[in-house]
């Protein structure tokens, strides 16, 4: 099991007001799954993503990633996990401004301490995997929304993570670009067996996933398999 969430609680305290974003959520995700997480605003899905992505810690409950209990780790250890195991794709791309596509894609390798030459080689191949060969030197402002999101995907892929978290990756894109992005994610899942967790509002985007989890009031409301899990083994599926 890649991800195991057991009775997760997340409580924010804002002054005297206590906000319970997660109320005993339980969820497990296997290696190679493509999961869409849906839910209304404020349902707790972003909180869940933050915890799964090791950006935040749950108030209570157990969360283990690849068999490691994340709850007890220090912030530097979390950074290490984010760097090696998790790739993030955000709604607003979050590329570093005035920095070329190549350098943006290099970023995780930079913090891993990879040599500059290797960084370049790996980032170049990641960019070509998302169809951006020849655009390495472009700056975010010179790229369309879809291209920027593809740079972001390249950045998420470059370090070879086992888990890709996409928080409304098509939220800021037109239909055509959305389809391209989803095609890339789909291919990553099917061809490389990468586990993808996708947060979305839109049902047609959620349809790319093989499993649909609906969250309401900090708990899982429904969880259904729409497609069997893509199994990628050396002998082939």
């Amino acid at each position: 099991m890649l991800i195991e969430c057991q009775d997760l609680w997340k409580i924010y305290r804002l002054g005297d007001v206590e906000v319970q974003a997660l109320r005993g959520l339980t969820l497990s995700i296997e290696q190679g799954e493509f999961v869409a997480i849906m839910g209304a605003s404020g349902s707790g899905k972003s909180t869940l993503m933050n915890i799964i992505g090791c950006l935040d810690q749950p108030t209570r409950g157990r969360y283990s990633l690849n068999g490691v209990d994340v709850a007890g780790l220090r912030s530097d250890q979390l950074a290490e996990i984010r760097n090696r195991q998790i790739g993030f794709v955000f709604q607003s791309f979050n590329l570093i401004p005035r920095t070329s596509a190549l350098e943006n894609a290099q970023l995780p390798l930079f913090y891993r301490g990879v040599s500059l030459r290797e960084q370049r080689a790996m980032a170049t191949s990641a960019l070509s995997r998302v169809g951006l060969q020849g655009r390495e030197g472009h700056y975010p402002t010179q790229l369309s929304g879809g291209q920027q999101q593809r740079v972001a995907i390249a950045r998420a892929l470059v370090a070879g993570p086992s888990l890709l978290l996409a928080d409304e990756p098509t939220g800021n894109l037109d239909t055509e670009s959305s389809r391209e992005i989803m095609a890339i994610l789909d291919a990553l899942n099917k061809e490389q067996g990468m586990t993808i967790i996708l947060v979305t509002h839109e049902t047609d985007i959620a349809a790319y996933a093989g499993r649909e989890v609906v969250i309401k009031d900090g708990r899982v409301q429904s969880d259904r398999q729409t497609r069997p899990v893509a199994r990628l083994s050396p002998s082939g599926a």
Partner: protein
Amino acid sequence: MPAFILLTVWTAVRILGRNRLRAGLTMLGIVIGVGAVIAMVSIGEGAKAAVAQRVATMGTNVIMVLPGSMTSSGVRGGHGGAVTLTVSDGIDLTKRIPLLRDTGWGKRDVMQIVNGNKNWNGTVNGVSPSYLTIRDWSFTSGGPFTQQDMDTAACVALLGQTIVENLFDTGEEPVGAVIRIKNMPFRVIGVLAPKGQSAQGSDQDDIIFIPFTTAERKVFGTQFLGSVGALFASTERTDDLAPAVEQIREVLRQRHRLQPDQDDDFFIRTQVDIGKVQEGTSETMTVMLFTIASISLLVGGIGIMNILLVSVTERTREIGVRMAVGAKRGHIMVQFLIEAMTISLVGGCLGIVFGVLGARVMTVIEHRGRGVRLFPRRRPVLRPLPGQQSLPAQSHRCIAVRIANKRPSRIIIQEPCTIHVPPILPPLNIEG
């Protein structure tokens, strides 16, 4: 890790390069601050050196004895009101105080000096030959008068540069010429090398020397033969000045028959006293300039701090992204620290360049004007840099760390977490 630091430095430089305007503006404060400190300190040092130079023109280890006040019938005369010092005082001082290398005397008056159809009112000094050596006068042409000229009250004169300029045409040779002082013909036997301004700012070259005896008997006229305007003495070593002053006081009190309860009827000044006063003034100036420049440096530092604060706040999202892809707190800290240090360092170096250039420009201007030299000095050049680094760099680091310390999720949180706060309404008082 060193590779990481190198890469970070490289990245920092590139990030700064991409934000040239912002980096440039940030640097400006430091450039001006450091430049101002260096220029100001150099100017202060130069002024001090100029004063020291002027004090040195007095001669070396000079002691001056000036007549004091005398009270007659209850009326107290001011300084110099008394004619209490005499030539025999001077001669006796030489005999009785071995510490003194030389003793001389003189008296002065402003008189009209005439050469052909030109005239000039200059200070005529009747002095003993030893006076010239005590005060370190040298000659551009001709030479000093001798003891024989003194004994015979010869009508010979030595001219200062200002006098020469005012009485002679350019190119005209003054030595050998005959000028008239108070209608007495004097033969010019020497022209003095220029000394420039005195420590008090008066023109030391507006001067004529004639033998003391000649002045006394033929030019000034005197009530008491042998009375002098001032006595001068010099010692071999600067350390001898203080004991020599005490001994002079003792001898003169004895010679003037002063009772122990009576005040001195003379007063004694040494070159060191005069130098101290002058240096004190310029020291005050230096401290003031340095303070002003330091304040401008501090303001420059605060400027950097503000711009860095804004830039860190502006880059909160960037910090969040970097943390999401695996940057540790230390990485963020080092990145921002290096950026701030790069700005300060480059700004500081530019400041040094501008400061030294500024001081040089001032030197040229001053040199042309008043003969003051400014000395850019090494110590203040090095001084501002370390302090410079710390304030803005530390604040930059603090802010970056404060942001880095937050949970990354708070930084790059995607949808603002909608919080349902139950509205708290005051109970309605319908009844009024």
